[in-house]
Every structure is written in structure tokens, then in C-alpha cells.
């Protein structure tokens, strides 16, 4: 498995919506490469026939009846929002100069 490159880290940072300075890019590239290097110790393991575990306790299809139930108070929720207008969340324009 190839080591993670500076370009890959830059790409991942964009995906994760994080702005990194050049210095941070270098530092993080080195650090991430070291952590991923450790993934080598499982690389050789043949686990093709082993089912993945997403979840340690066997619960399936946890549902409730489709009936209206009380939920969070809108005022209380919006009170924690950075900007609101007419009971809605206000954000900057979605379309603009693309980053």
C-alpha cells in the first residue's frame, strides 16, 4: 500500500472541509503516513472470508410505530443557532464563487 502523499492529504482536507496551511499539510502528511503505516500489520491478514462487524451488539431493524410523538421545541432548538429568520436557519448564499 503506497504511503499517503501530500496531494492526497490536501484532497482529503478539502473533502473534510478543513483549510490547512502549507506547514500543516507537511506535518499532517508525515503523521498520517505513520499511522497508516501501522495498517500494514493487518494488510497481510487473510480476512476475505471473515464477515465485517459494523456494530458489536446484534440488534436489527429497531423501529417504532409510525405515530406522531412530541419532539424538541422549535424555539429551544433555534435559540442555539448562529442565525435565524422567520423560524428558519439563515445561511450565506449557497451558490457563489466556488472554493
Amino acid at each position, binding site marked *: 500500500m503506497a504511503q499517503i502523499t501530500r496531494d492526497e492529504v490536501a484532497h482529503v482536507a478539502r473533502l473534510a472541509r478543513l483549510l490547512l496551511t502549507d506547514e500543516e499539510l507537511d506535518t499532517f502528511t508525515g503523521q498520517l503516513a505513520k499511522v497508516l503505516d*501501522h495498517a500494514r500489520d493487518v494488510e497481510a491478514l487473510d480476512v476475505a472470508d471473515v464477515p465485517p462487524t459494523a456494530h458489536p451488539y446484534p440488534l436489527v431493524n429497531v423501529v417504532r410505530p409510525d405515530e406522531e410523538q412530541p419532539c424538541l421545541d422549535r424555539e429551544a432548538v433555534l435559540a*442555539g443557532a448562529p442565525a435565524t429568520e422567520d423560524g428558519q436557519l439563515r445561511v450565506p448564499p449557497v451558490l457563489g464563487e466556488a472554493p
Partner: protein
Amino acid sequence: MTAPTQSALDIAADVRAGRRAAAAVVDEHLDAIEARDDEIHAFNLVLADEARQAALAIDRRVAAGEDPGPLAGVPVALKDNLCTAGVPTTCSSRILEGWRPPYDATVVEKLADAGAIVVGKTNLDEFAMGSSTENSAFGPTRNPHDTSKVPGGSSGGSAAAVAAGFAALALGSDTGGSIRQPAALCGVVGMKPTYGRVSRYGLVAFASSLDQIGPLSRTVADAAALYQVIAGHDPRDATSIPEPVQDVRAGLVEGVAGLRVGVVTELCEAEGIQPDVMARVRQAIDALEEAGAKVDEVSVPAVVYGLTAYYLINPAEASSNLARYDGVRFGLRVDAPTTGEMYDRTRTAGFGAEVERRIMLGTYALSAGYYDAFYGKAQRVRTLIIRDLEAAYERFDVLVGPTAPSTAFPFGAKTADPLTMYLNDVCTIPSNLSGQPAISVPFGTGDDGLPVGVQVMAPALGEAAMFRAAAAVEAGAPERGDA
């Protein structure tokens, strides 16, 4: 002044019987906080007025002949990633600085019903990512036993609060050892329940398949009492176990005659385990044997892959869970001409370095072309670990080993290389991956005079056997002073 040392059970008994006023108990603990938390920084927020009000309400109930609850008057500290309605919950991150949740976590509601009194929100590594509380955006917490040393993490504030006598009980969260490791380093009891046994509703999510809330306390009996209050099915948490909760408290005095105890070879021989820590673990094992347990070595081979699997799974899940912090609905917003730029600037300004590191690691491990090689593989390795642990539990009732490889280390000792910090979790991680319960019990000190914790692990829903063994370890522990 000396900090309060009364156990939670003794406090509750006194308050319920009218022998002590909850108001006096709370004042005693608030005094201890006032005297020493400037130095320790266990708390992000102390709730003195609220605690006093709650104490008066408890005392009124006692006077009126009403049942004030099993933990009446007991001061409790809450890790600051547990939602408390109307009270700032920061996860020790700038991105949630000042944010007040619109609801209480289920465990917070249960504590109130039990009559416990919240004295404050404790410091943690940002978003629970870390093993020393050095990653807090609001400054580290100091170990009450030696303030030049870390308290461990991520629930460092909760562990320090109990160790310093600021609270008789605390709640923390444990994703890779974040309750047990700081408990070990601070000389207190810390326990992680079976995954799904305690509702995660209101716990700010870090890694959803690993996170669990659990108790920190001075005694095993106190931890069992708090566990009994917070455990149980919650329809608001879809990962909550439906089975009723067994009462673990009666079994505490049963002793361990005939209990089959396995000593996990790979954990005792893991990288970096201090010899003096291992010596205490051996002493604890001897104590169990003297108390009648059947002790033997057991190999759990796949456990050696635990760290690798964990450091692929936890960042992947974290990267997904932390995508919600974008400046839109809550928390920090850094204004910008477009939403995209707002997301970028908000997250960059709001997250610390370790959080950014894990988000990027997780994003990478989940990205196209790498998903199978990293996250997919880690999930299969997780199955191997579960299988090997289950095999061990066919021959043994509980497994024992060290909680943490070392005693409390100095600030800055492990921050240069993230990997060095990650190694702190090597003994605790397997129980998070398997979703099985585990507890750290203080057992003497290392050569440096700092606390050592011994870990008891049990199969899923095996809390009763785990607590029984833990009580026996505690009974066999050498004398220890308070912080």
C-alpha cells in the same frame, strides 16, 4: 483543608435518613472545588448555584417524608460531552463554545430522578479524542496526585474530580479506554458497560459503534450503584439493548470462589507496559487466587491487532459524526460569502489539531479506492478480535490485565508523535471493539508513587461477574492515601 472522602453510598444513606443535609454535602464539595480547582482544572463549568438549589429541593423532599432517590444528595460531575439542557456543553472544543443543548441526555435525566446533584461539567480531550486531556481547547486538567502529570483521558476531568474529592461520583465516556485509563492514572474506579447497556441519547457522538457512558467513583460499590441508575433500555437510542438490567449490587459481596479468571498473555506483554505496573497486576491476580478464584493464562491472539483496527474505525466514524459541525445549526459560525467557505472557515477555526488529524484519517480510510483496504479490513479484524475474546470467555468468566501501560506521565511527554499517545489505549481498546464491559480498579502505586489500575473484562452483559471480581481486587488492594 482536606477534601471530602465519603463514599456516594454513605452520603446517600446519610441524606436519606436525614442525618446529613444535602445542602451541607454540596457545600463541602463546592468548598473543595473552590480551594483546588484553579490548580487542577477538572471543570469547564462549576454549577454552584444550581447545585445548591437542587440540594435544597432534596432536603425538602426528605423533610416531607418523600423518597428522594437512591443517590440523594450525592455530588456528581458530568463529562462535558453529555448534554445538559440550557447549560453549556462544549466537548472542550471551540466549535461548541457557549452552546446550550435544548435537551438533557437520558443519563442526566436518570441522575436527577435518583436525587444526585450535578456540581459541574468536566474537562476532556476535545470531542473525547485523546488519552491525556491535553487536547482540550480550554487547557489541560492536572492529575491531583501529582500536578506535573496528566490525569489521563479523554475523561481526565471526571477522573480528577473524583480523585480530588470535588465530587463523589462522575460520568465519563469510553470509546477506546477514555473512562478506564484516566481512572487508572488518577487512582479511582472507572467502568465501561456492555455496548448498548447505557443510552447514548444526549452523548455527543464520537465513534458510534464504540462510545459508551460509564461511572467513575472511589469504590467499586459506588460504581455499581451509579451503573444501576444509568443502565437500561431507552427507546430514544436505537442501539440500546432491550433486555432488562440485572441487579449487580447483591453479588458484590459474593466473593470469587470458583470464578474462572483468565490472564490475557498478549495484553500483559503489550508494547510499553511498565514492569512496576505489571507487578501490581500480578499482585492483584494473586489476591484473586487467594480469594478462591481459578486463575490461568489465556491467549487471545487477535488482540494484537486491536490498536490498528481501532485507529482505522474510530477516525472513520468520527469523520462522519463530526461532519455536522459546519456553522449552520449550532455552535461556532465563521461568516463567509458562501456556505462552502463558511463550512471551511468554521471547521478550521473550531477544531483542534488532533480532531483535524482524526477527521482526515477517517475521511481517507473511507474514501473511494481505500474503503476496503482500510475501513473494510478493520471491520473484519474487529470480527477476529470478537471471536478470540468469545473463545476465551468459554473457558473463563472474566479476563484480567493492566488497564494502562504506564502510570501518569508528564505533560508533553507523549504529544510529539500521535502514535505514542495512541499506545496508551492498547489494553482498553479490545473491550470497545467487542462491545464487552470492563472496569479499572485502583491497585497500589508504581515505583513513582503514582496510582496503578487493574482491569477486569467480562463478556457482553457480564457486568455481575465483572463487578464481583472487581470487588475482590479492591478488597485485596494495598492501602492507598487520597489525593
